[in-house]
């Protein structure tokens, strides 16, 4: 059955901004799908609000709409493009839910658009917990006892039947949002109410708890001839009760006999058929009682998922690409397996290595948040590691995680052992190690943690061997046999160095002398049964190395490792662009990365992919093997950048801006000298190691001061401090402080505007990529602020000055490639806050706004091309506005202080484009799911400094028909200005207060700006509640202004949609280049 001929134009729905539970894996799947469909001659229309994606590159789809993913915008696009079909299975839960809503609104029917890949009935059957349960009962599959509730009263009724402990699982949500394990009545009331509120259909399932059972996942594909294959089985190291997204997972399943596995396989096949997913991939989750093997179905996701991305990377089988082909009518046997070329895709991959995925958490960013792991996903990224044994892969994964662990270590296990073993948390491997080191028996650990004994045994073997190693030193030697065994078990050179009191490089030297170097093996989908043509490698310590190196000119690109807050998809985007551009320029490209969610780790992206941790050891091993002519460290964020100096020292040809220049920008002292030399201005600053020094510096500089550790990304541990007591407290909390790594103390510029600039330079030509004016004032991390390109309020004089300074900095630093500068503008004075001589988070956004692929150009510049040759010599200032807005993960971190500050907390971003600034802003808000209201009550409570500025904002709201409610101080100011408001009490004073409004569902918008140095307790509570109830919450006066103008524009004008390709056609170069 070849491809369908009744379809020519296909609309693909993307997944929008990166949020916890839905990350760049959907860029990977969406990009694959776009490529696959266009290859087959289909015209592809794309909607996705996330600019940091490869899929929204203007070349990826035929027509790209960077617009909010809502039914309203979908309809506008359908009106213009008139697609024949819509494919909603590649954009995660967002795409699926939007498609269901659009279907229910009759939009697809109205415009004659067919849904392909899945139908609405199937989505409902899979996502609606009750329908799913019925379907599973029909095919004889076991489910936990459960009952369904739509109200809290119903929930209580159900509980009478099921009895505590129970698990609450909302329908149609993502990553377990709003669910949880309830052991007490109190927990039940809280979690049930929350779940009801977050479910798209106000539906929760209350289910018998089977915490502690084994958890498995199967990735299934089906074609329209009803052929079904299983791509991968995944076993969770963490038992039931920890969300799979937060669990360490292993592929393939390790502890199932064939009998049990086949039972699960049969169940999966029955499930996909019963649910009726016509074509494509699905993910089915199972629980297994370890005592008797009773198997239970937990859920099915009728779409490609995070796990399918993992399964693709784990096996080499490109699920999303094949899913796209199946959706347009091909059958599995008609599609060749890319990797073997000779065999078809209608088979089940078999692997000859062990894959371990380890999640990466960011609890340190959310003090106060519940840091334990449960059924609600909290991790922000993950690494995948491949090894020939579990032990090897596990240790590789841990060192790739970049959590300052060089492998399986117990350093971080400083708390109570039993408590931390019992309650799963982000540091659990450290506690497991400590338990083993302290001699706790496997039986006991299993009893406490429910982790399968097989996994524990493997961990125990690592610990045991480490002990042997340690005693070997005493005996006075490290024999080559021992060293080899250590490497086979995944010990890193750093770990060994620690054991043998040697440096990483010393171990490395000894190792190389003994010829103990890794062999690289192929990921080939077939365990070597057939010859493989796809150069996708992992390292291990075995005999045969399969890499066939060439003598072509090679450039190696270092990726960014696991996603985390502050280092996400934007950097992967840049790495991919480097690979694409350099490949086109005739180089052989080599990618090194360990993040399974990304496009960079697609075997199609570069000429050779090494799926390896981005550490000095692992990178050097590959460099020894490949001997590349150049290595790019500028694109993967802080991870590769931190390796730059060490690589350079080891004689590696790091290309682009020199590591010394990078150091000059990162090192405060050198940076200050640089600023002075150029005659620029920077906030007054100093360093401190002790509190005494900090106190002295602060009083010299004057409060408020901004304090932070040196060498951090995303503003980690950065705080604005208004007085000495708080400063003392801060200094006491900071542990890692040394003379080499002091605390930086800066003058904090209050009420300043912040501006981001990206520049590309080749040593001769310096071109501004874009000048972005932030919506929020300085003090809110650039990664957390909304911004506009071009600036919406800065004067031309200031912008020109910023351009001049940027070019001066780039020239002085001899930037070859990209550079990002952050400025603050206060009273028309320009201050340099920070210079990053590397790709920045904003590169994809800017590239899309100006229609120039900056990262591609930069990679070519690094490889020796000149901007003149590349034809990019002058800044492009668009005459439309592009607004970036961010998405924050506070819903996941209940209890955390949701105030924004200089420490970055957002997980993702969206882009709104329009000729009108306030419409572009409004679009960005809608896309970020904090859609501005058109009516209702607005809570306004501002600090004294904002009391003047709030008046016109409140007036406009009043004139537009909103009712206002304020706390007494703000109400007084508004009253004096003739604006009527309802006076609310402060939360601490009792009811009625703003929280009551939120609870009653009456609040449409909260404008609540922080009062001074410390957020007051009730402000945190209001914001927390507002955020969890989906009420947009503005915390700065600038944000308030932009929001209110946005509301006005939404009321007065209709929003139009426009393809990115059309915006780019309008562009012309307008401004001179500052050289």
């Amino acid at each position, binding site marked *: 059955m070849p491809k369908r001929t009744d379809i020519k134009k296909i609309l693909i729905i993307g997944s929008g901004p990166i949020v916890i539970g839905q990350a760049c894996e959907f860029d990977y799947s969406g990009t694959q799908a776009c490529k696959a469909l266009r290859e087959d001659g289909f015209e592809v229309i794309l909607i996705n609000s996330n600019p940091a994606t490869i899929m929204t590159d203007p070349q990826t789809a035929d027509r790209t709409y960077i617009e909010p993913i809502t039914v309203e915008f979908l309809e506008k696009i359908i009106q213009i493009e008139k697609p024949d079909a819509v494919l909603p299975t590649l954009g995660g839960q967002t795409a699926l839910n939007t498609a269901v809503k659009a279907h229910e609104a009759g939009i697809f029917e109205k415009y004659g658009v067919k849904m392909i890949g899945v139908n609405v009935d199937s989505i409902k059957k899979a996502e609606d917990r009750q329908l799913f349960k019925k379907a599973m009962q029909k095919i004889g599959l076991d489910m936990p006892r459960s009952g369904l509730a739509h109200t809290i009263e119903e929930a209580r009724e159900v509980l009478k039947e099921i009895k505590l402990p129970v698990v609450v699982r909302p329908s149609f949500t993502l990553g377990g949002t709003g669910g949880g394990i309830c052991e007490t009545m109190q927990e039940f009331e809280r979690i049930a109410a929350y779940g009801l509120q977050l479910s798209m259909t106000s539906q929760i399932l209350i289910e018998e708890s089977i915490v502690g059972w084994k958890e498995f996942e199967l990735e299934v594909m089906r074609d329209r001839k009803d052929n079904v294959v299983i791509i991968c089985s995944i076993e969770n190291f963490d038992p039931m009760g920890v969300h799979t997204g937060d669990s360490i997972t292993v592929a393939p399943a390790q502890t199932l006999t064939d009998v049990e596995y086949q039972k699960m396989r049969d169940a999966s096949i029955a499930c996909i058929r019963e649910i009726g997913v016509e074509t494509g991939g699905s993910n089915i989750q199972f629980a297994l009682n370890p005592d008797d093997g009773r198997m239970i179905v937990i859920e099915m996701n009728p779409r490609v998922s995070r796990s399918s991305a993992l399964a693709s990377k784990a096996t080499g089988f490109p699920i999303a690409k094949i899913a796209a082909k199946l959706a347009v009518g091909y059958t599995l*046997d008609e599609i060749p397996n890319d990797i073997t070329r000779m065999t078809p895709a*209608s088979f089940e991959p*078999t692997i000859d290595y*062990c894959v371990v995925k380890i999640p990466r958490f960011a609890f340190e960013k959310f003090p106060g948040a519940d840091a334990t792991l449960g059924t609600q996903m909290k991790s922000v990224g993950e690494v995948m590691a491949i090894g020939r044994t579990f032990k090897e892969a596990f240790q590789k994964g841990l060192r790739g995680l970049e959590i300052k662990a060089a492998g399986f270590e117990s350093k971080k296990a400083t708390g109570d052992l039993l408590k931390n073993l019992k309650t799963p948390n982000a540091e659990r491997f450290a506690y497991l190690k400590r338990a083993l080191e302290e001699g706790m028996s496997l039986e006991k650990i299993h009893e406490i943690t429910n982790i399968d*004994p097989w996994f524990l045994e493997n961990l125990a073997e690592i610990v045991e061997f480490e002990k042997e190693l340690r005693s070997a030193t005493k005996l006075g030697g490290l024999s080559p046999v021992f060293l080899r065994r250590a490497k086979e078990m995944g010990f890193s050179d750093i770990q060994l160095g620690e054991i043998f009191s040697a440096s990483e490089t010393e171990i490395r030297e000894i190792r190389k002398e003994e010829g103990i170097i890794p062999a690289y093996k192929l990921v080939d989908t077939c365990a070597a049964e057939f010859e493989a043509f796809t150069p996708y490698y992992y390292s291990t310590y075995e005999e045969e190395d399969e890499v066939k190196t060439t003598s072509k000119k090679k450039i190696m690109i270092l990726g960014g490792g696991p996603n985390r807050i502050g280092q996400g998809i934007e950097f992967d985007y840049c790495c991919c662009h480097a690979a694409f551009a350099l490949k086109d320029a005739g180089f052989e490209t080599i990618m090194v990365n360990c993040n399974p969610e990304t496009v960079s780790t697609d075997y199609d992206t570069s000429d050779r992919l090494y799926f390896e941790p981005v550490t000095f050891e692992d990178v050097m091993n590959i460099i020894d093997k490949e001997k590349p002519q150049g290595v790019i460290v500028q694109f993967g964020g802080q991870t590769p950048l931190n390796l730059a100096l060490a690589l350079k020292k080891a004689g590696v040809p790091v290309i682009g801006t020199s590591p010394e220049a990078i150091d000059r920008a990162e090192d405060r002292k050198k940076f200050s000298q640089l600023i002075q030399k150029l005659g620029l201005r920077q906030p007054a600053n100093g360093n401190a190691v002790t509190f005494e020094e900090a106190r002295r510096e602060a009083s010299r500089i004057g409060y408020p001061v901004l304090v932070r550790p040196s060498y951090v990304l995303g503003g980690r541990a950065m705080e604005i401090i208004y007085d000495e007591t708080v400063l003392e407290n801060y200094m006491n909390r900071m542990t890692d402080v040394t003379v080499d790594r002091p605390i930086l103390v800066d003058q904090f510029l209050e009420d300043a505007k912040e501006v981001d600039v990206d520049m590309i330079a080749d040593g001769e030509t310096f071109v501004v990529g874009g000048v972005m004016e932030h919506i929020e004032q300085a003090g809110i991390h650039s990664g957390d602020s909304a911004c506009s390109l071009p600036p919406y309020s800065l004067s031309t004089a200031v912008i020109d000055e910023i351009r001049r300074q940027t070019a001066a900095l780039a020239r002085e630093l001899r930037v070859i490639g990209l550079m990002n500068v952050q400025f603050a503008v206060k009273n028309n004075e320009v201050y340099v806050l920070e210079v990053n001589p590397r790709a920045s988070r904003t590169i994809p956004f800017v590239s899309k706004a100006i229609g120039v692929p900056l990262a591609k150009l930069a990679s070519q510049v690094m490889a020796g091309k000149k901007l003149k040759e590349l034809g990019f010599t002058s800044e492009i200032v668009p005459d439309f506005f592009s607004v970036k807005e961010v998405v924050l993960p506070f819903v996941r971190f209940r209890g955390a202080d949701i105030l924004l500050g200089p420490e970055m907390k957002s997980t993702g971003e969206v882009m709104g484009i329009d000729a009108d600034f306030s419409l572009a802003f409004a679009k960005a808000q809608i896309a970020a799911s904090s859609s501005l209201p058109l009516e209702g009550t607005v809570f306004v409570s501002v600090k004294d400094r904002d009391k003047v500025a709030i008046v016109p904002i409140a007036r406009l709201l009043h004139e537009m028909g909103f009712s206002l409610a304020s706390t007494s101080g703000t109400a007084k100011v508004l009253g004096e200005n003739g604006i009527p408001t309802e006076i609310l009490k402060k939360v601490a004073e009792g009811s009625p207060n703003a929280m009551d409004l939120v609870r009653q569902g009456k609040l449409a918008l909260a404008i609540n700006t922080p009062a001074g140095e410390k957020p007051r307790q009730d402000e945190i509570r209001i914001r927390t509640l507002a955020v969890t109830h989906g009420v947009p919450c503005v915390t700065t006066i600038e944000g308030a202004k932009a929001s209110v103008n946005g509301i006005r524009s939404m009321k007065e004008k209709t929003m139009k949609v426009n393809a990115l390709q059309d915006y780019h056609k309008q562009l012309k170069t307008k401004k001179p280049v500052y050289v």
Partner: protein
Amino acid sequence: MERSKIKKIAVLTLEDGQVFRGSSFGAEGEAYGEVVFNTSMMGYQEILTDPSYKGQMVCMTYPLIGNYGVNKEDMESTRPFLEGFIVKEVSRIYSNWRATEDLGSYLKRNNIVGIEGIDTRRLTKHIREHGAKKGVISTTDFDGKNLVRKAKASAGLEGRDLIKEVTCKKAYDWNATGKYRVAAIDSGIKHNILRNLEARGCQVRVFPATAQAKEISEFKPHGLFLSNGPGDPAALSYIVNTVKELIGTKLPVFGICLGHQILGQVFGGKTFKLKFGHHGGNQPVQDLETGAVLITAQNHGFAVDVDSIPDKNVVLTHVNLNDRTCEGMEHKTLPVFSVQYHPEAAPGPHDAACHFDKFIGMMKKNA
């Protein structure tokens, strides 16, 4: 769960001089056989006890083996039949509620020599590129030249009848009652075939491979089943002749694996040796009638050359999508069909279980 102490050395040597040094597990001593690889990620217990591996040493391509131990239920025969077992890493413990013993002890108890800790991927690629090779695993002799000589001198598979070593000594009843009497010729039959027949209401009597047609006829079977088995199918003219005698009677006949190869010869065709065979649980087979693809379990080193069958009533029904070899055939006028793969799975997917139903259907028609 006893932990192994210091590991003893074991060496695998192939007839072409390739050497793989590892450590010993299971029994110690020396074992010879044709080295093949199996790509199933689970199911080592079924593989160990599959009599078709007689004469062979199996290398598991999945590196972590023994994780779930060995249990009482997942036996495909009474004991392991393969000559040697080759893995990357044997689990020191087992974890499964059904397990009763760890893999190493089980092999030791059954006197099967194992080797672990070798680069099994290198071995697999070597076999893929150079074909299945005779080899020797030794825990006693580490002299390279000696070992190559031993490997060369070992019997190998071609032209070799191994059935006599795996077939039952005399006929026995697998179960006592059932709607259809099935006579199964045991060339090394896997128990899951018998379980499948039993589950579908068959009363199965298992006959030794040397049984005469007359003896089988006396059982008055509704159907004849030809089992899987080890070695070279071309060396089994006595079974071929028995089947020839029985087939004329319009008796429904179903053959699996070796049974399929025997039928190929019954109809005058030839078999040939594959370079390294199909051993695994992920082989795509297309049903030529419906176009459907089945993911099948396979374990064979020889294949039927359908074109060599002079009887034009024999049609190709299934083909392997990886290498287009014959996977199934059927007689147009007689109720006779066979498949090269294993519908009984064990280990492997159940996609092809429908063939048992087809066999039942034929007997029903005939009954």
